[in-house]
């Protein structure tokens, strides 16, 4: 491999950077060194120029041409002074001791030539020449001339044109023929045949030494000419002298050429022992290093970027995880967290909250499957927990009255904004979440879970209500049932309907009026809203007095069942006796009954209260003292020692007996012989008034007795005995519908003569009846005193 390009024999090696250049170049391609021989000014000044100098020698071993100054061969290292015989033998010489011992040295003197026939370095002295000639004369001169177009050059000028002398080689050949005698046609000069060899040799000749050869030839010529001239005279008679001289010159040239060819061959025969990069200039080395360093740096930078990217991603993931697990742990403190082994669906990690409260429910009572109990957790974008709400998860019980024009009460969802925040948590906050965000998030999730929990419990309550309504027990009158709705009749004319209503978003405007106007059957559907538009508040307020508010009812209902479940739980926890549990269960199984009765009671008692208040507001001296007990089924109003006890639809009016004073004058605790009457609502006012009037009469009676009159008391009359057997009667007339006052008094004079006996009050035309009107207590008292005075006066008078 010669450097990737074919190496022609004309190519030359730069001496400083050892780079192979084309032969046409004059200066080295890499370093700019000029080719040897281009400058022909002074060969001697250029050291090491490749020319044949005196003293150049051929190595004995490798036959390489060495410069004179080399002590040993530059190729093989053999020293110069090897034995001449070795040299001679390598060259195939015969060492002629006589003449060659002194002359046959390896030094090459100028003018030496190699005899082509014998290959012996001949001498340029005439003696050797002549010897050769002699040899040539002895033997047959058969000169093997290759087809060397031997032309002697005169000069080569700068351009490279060769100037040949007029043909000098031809006489050589011609002479040969003359010598040989018979012309040999093959020895005719083939010089005009321009073959490849000729071209090569022509180029070889052009290289270096042509002028030198010319010089040397010139010097030889001069040398020859001088001996020629020196001895022209003695040898002029020899006709072959010129021929011989020409032959010698040709020999010289040939030898030179052969030397050159040998050198080239030797150099060509050199195998490529090694490829060597041309020695790099320092800046090239540095630039290579710089490029590698830059590449490495680039890679390192890429790596750095990769690291940063992955670290950011890792940080993000870590923070997400931290937030997720942190909030999970916090929620776990309150809720039951479960892990699913099987991945339930995309986006969920298999965690879920179990909101079903299994401790307090019987398995038999779960008629309604609760798919909402398991709330799945999904992971949000930023790593926060998100709860996948089951559908229909927010439901609550709402109670409404169908008899009245009353729609369900308003219930706002507890956390209305939780819906939005669960769905679009990150729409607002794209930046990094802070701790407060996480905290508020956790709180929101808590609230959501709590709501779901509540709704589950309410569903359970409704379920149990339904169950209990199946069992017929007094007090429960089911009038209608739908899937989510239960209608009960309480009292005489009202019915409530309980339904499971789903709580929707606030901006759903659903017509809630339509609920109550669906005929008297009053089936309302549960998909409609539980919200009340605000302008229904008037109705609400109107109806407020008549019926207990539905909110209270709901709370009460939930409370009942909660108590039930809790009590049951506690029973389970603390007592292992089955009897107690069952017994308790039996008593508590009618929670609905309790509720219904309570509702009925409350309605009724409200009515009673209304009646009483109406009465009281008309009679100025009657006061109402409410005495709300803490039992839900009895309300009592002691009033003027008339105790009205409403107990489960029954009004018991118990008044005191004969003795007792009025409250307005003091409170006496005398209360023997209580009369109690049961009555119902319609008769209540009358009886009340009768009671009151009776008590007043009693009081008057007592007073009169104190004074000393003879009085007697009938149911509502007070008889005063006057003299002459006259009786003065004071009759109370009770009239609940009387606007001015309910108790009015009549004074009746009775003569002894009249034996009608009873007073007949059928007509008011009796003269001896006087209408006194509504009298206050003081007036009555003073009247009594007057009567007493009258009677005593009359007694005293007569």
């Amino acid at each position, binding site marked *: 491999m010669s450097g990737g390009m074919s190496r022609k024999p004309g190519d030359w090696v730069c001496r400083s950077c050892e780079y192979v250049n084309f032969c046409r170049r004059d200066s080295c391609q890499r370093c700019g060194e000029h080719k040897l021989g281009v400058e022909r000014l002074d060969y001697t000044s250029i050291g090491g120029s490749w020319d044949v100098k005196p003293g150049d020698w051929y190595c004995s071993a490798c036959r390489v041409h060495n410069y004179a100054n080399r002590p040993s061969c530059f190729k093989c290292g053999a020293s110069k002074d090897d034995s001449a015989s070795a040299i001679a033998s390598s060259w195939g010489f015969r060492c002629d001791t006589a003449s060659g011992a002194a002359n046959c040295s390896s030094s090459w003197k100028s003018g030496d030539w190699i005899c082509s026939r014998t290959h012996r370095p001949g001498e340029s002295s005439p003696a050797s020449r002549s010897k050769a000639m002699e040899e040539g004369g002895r033997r047959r001169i058969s000169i093997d001339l290759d087809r060397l177009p031997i032309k002697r050059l005169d000069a080569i000028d700068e351009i490279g044109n060769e100037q040949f002398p007029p043909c000098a080689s031809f006489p050589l050949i011609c002479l040969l023929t003359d010598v040989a005698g018979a012309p040999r046609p093959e020895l005719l000069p083939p010089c005009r045949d321009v073959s490849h060899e000729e071209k090569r040799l022509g180029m070889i000749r052009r290289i270096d030494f042509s002028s030198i050869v010319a010089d040397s030839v010139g010097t030889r010529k001069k040398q020859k000419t001088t001996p020629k001239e020196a001895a022209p005279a003695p040898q002029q008679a020899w006709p072959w002298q010129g021929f011989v001289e020409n032959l010698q010159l040709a020999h010289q040239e040939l030898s030179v050429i052969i030397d050159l060819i040998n050198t080239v061959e030797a150099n060509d025969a050199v195998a490529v022992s090694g490829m060597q990069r041309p020695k790099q200039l320092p800046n090239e080395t540095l630039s290579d290093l710089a490029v590698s360093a830059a590449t490495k740096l680039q890679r390192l930078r890429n790596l750095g970027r990769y690291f940063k990217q992955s670290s950011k991603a890792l940080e993000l993931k870590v923070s997400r995880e931290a937030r997720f697990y942190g909030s999970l742990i916090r929620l776990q403190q309150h809720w039951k*967290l479960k892990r699913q082994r099987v991945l339930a669906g995309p986006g969920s990690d298999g965690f879920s909250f179990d909101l079903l409260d299994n401790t307090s429910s019987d398995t038999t009572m779960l008629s309604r499957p609760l798919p909402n109990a398991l709330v799945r957790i999904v992971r949000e974008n930023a790593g926060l927990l998100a709860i996948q709400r089951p559908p229909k998860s927010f439901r609550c019980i709402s109670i409404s009255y169908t008899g009245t024009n009353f729609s369900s009460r308003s219930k706002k969802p507890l956390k209305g904004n939780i819906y939005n925040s669960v769905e679009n948590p990150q729409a607002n906050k794209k930046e990094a979440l802070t701790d407060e965000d996480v905290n508020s998030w956790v709180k929101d999730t808590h609230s959501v879970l709590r709501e779901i929990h509540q709704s589950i419990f309410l569903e359970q309550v409704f379920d149990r209500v339904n169950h209990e309504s199946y069992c017929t027990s007094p007090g429960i009158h089911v009038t209608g049932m739908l899937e989510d709705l239960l209608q009960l009749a309480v009292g005489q004319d009202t019915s409530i309907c309980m339904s499971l209503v789903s709580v929707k978003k606030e901006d759903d405007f659903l017509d809630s009026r339509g609920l109550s106007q669906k005929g008297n059957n009053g089936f309302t559907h549960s998909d409609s809203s539980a919200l009340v538009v605000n302008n229904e508040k008037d109705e609400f307020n109107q109806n407020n007095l008549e019926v207990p508010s539905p909110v209270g009812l709901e709370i009460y209902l939930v409370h009942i069942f909660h108590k039930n479940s809790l009590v049951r739980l506690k029973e389970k926890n603390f007592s292992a006796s089955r009897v107690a549990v069952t017994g308790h269960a039996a008593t508590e199984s009618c929670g609905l009954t309790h509720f219904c009765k309570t509702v009925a009671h409350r309605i009724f008692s409200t009515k009673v209260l209304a009646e009483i208040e109406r009465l009281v507001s008309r009679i100025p001296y009657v006061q109402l003292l409410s005495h709300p007990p803490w039992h839900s089924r009895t309300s009592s109003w002691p009033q003027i020692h008339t105790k009205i006890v409403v107990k489960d639809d029954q009004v018991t009016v118990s008044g005191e007996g004969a003795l007792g004073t009025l409250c307005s004058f003091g409170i006496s605790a005398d209360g023997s012989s209580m009369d109690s009457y049961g009555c119902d609502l319609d008769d209540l006012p009358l009886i009340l008034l009768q009671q009151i009037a009776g008590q007043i009469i009693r009081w008057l009676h007592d007073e009169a007795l104190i004074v000393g009159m003879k009085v007697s008391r009938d149911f509502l009359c007070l008889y005063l005995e006057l003299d002459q057997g006259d009786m003065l009667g004071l009759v109370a007339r009770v009239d609940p519908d009387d606007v001015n006052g309910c108790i009015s008094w009549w004074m009746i004079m009775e003569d002894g003569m009249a034996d009608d006996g009873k007073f007949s009050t059928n007509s008011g035309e009796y003269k001896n009846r006087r209408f006194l009107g509504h009298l206050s207590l003081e007036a009555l008292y003073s009247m009594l005193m007057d009567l007493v005075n009258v009677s005593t006066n009359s007694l005293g008078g007569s």
Partner: protein
Amino acid sequence: MNKAAVGGGGGGGGPTAAAAVAAAQKQKTLLQRVDADVSNLVDNFSHLVNLARVNDPPVRNSQEAFQMEIRAARMVQAAESLRNLVSELKQTAIFSGFGSLNDNVDRQVAEFNRLEEGSERLLEKVGEQAAANLKELEAHYYSSVLRSSQGDDG
């Protein structure tokens, strides 16, 4: 680790020694994983730094560049597996930390009981206040000008 200590303590006291052994084994496995990951990280990083020198022939440089990339990827992988390990640990703590779970439950129960009592008392107070207010109202009303004027009319 706390978890393991609790698990070990509970295991030793509770079921059998086999459970304790299993817990210790699990702990050892986790520790091994952690060690492997951390040593992975350190080794790969040191190799990376070693590979960062610039050599003369560019072939060597591109070789080293590829090697560097591989080391970097391995480091990131080790970090990922560490993170997974941490989340595993957290999961285990959540679901198997029975001590803390029981504590939570007890605390919740106590809190709710307290709340219940508080609400009961509140309700009682409210009722009493309502009754008192009612009595007062009635007294005022019946002794007020309204009633007496009404009485005067009669």
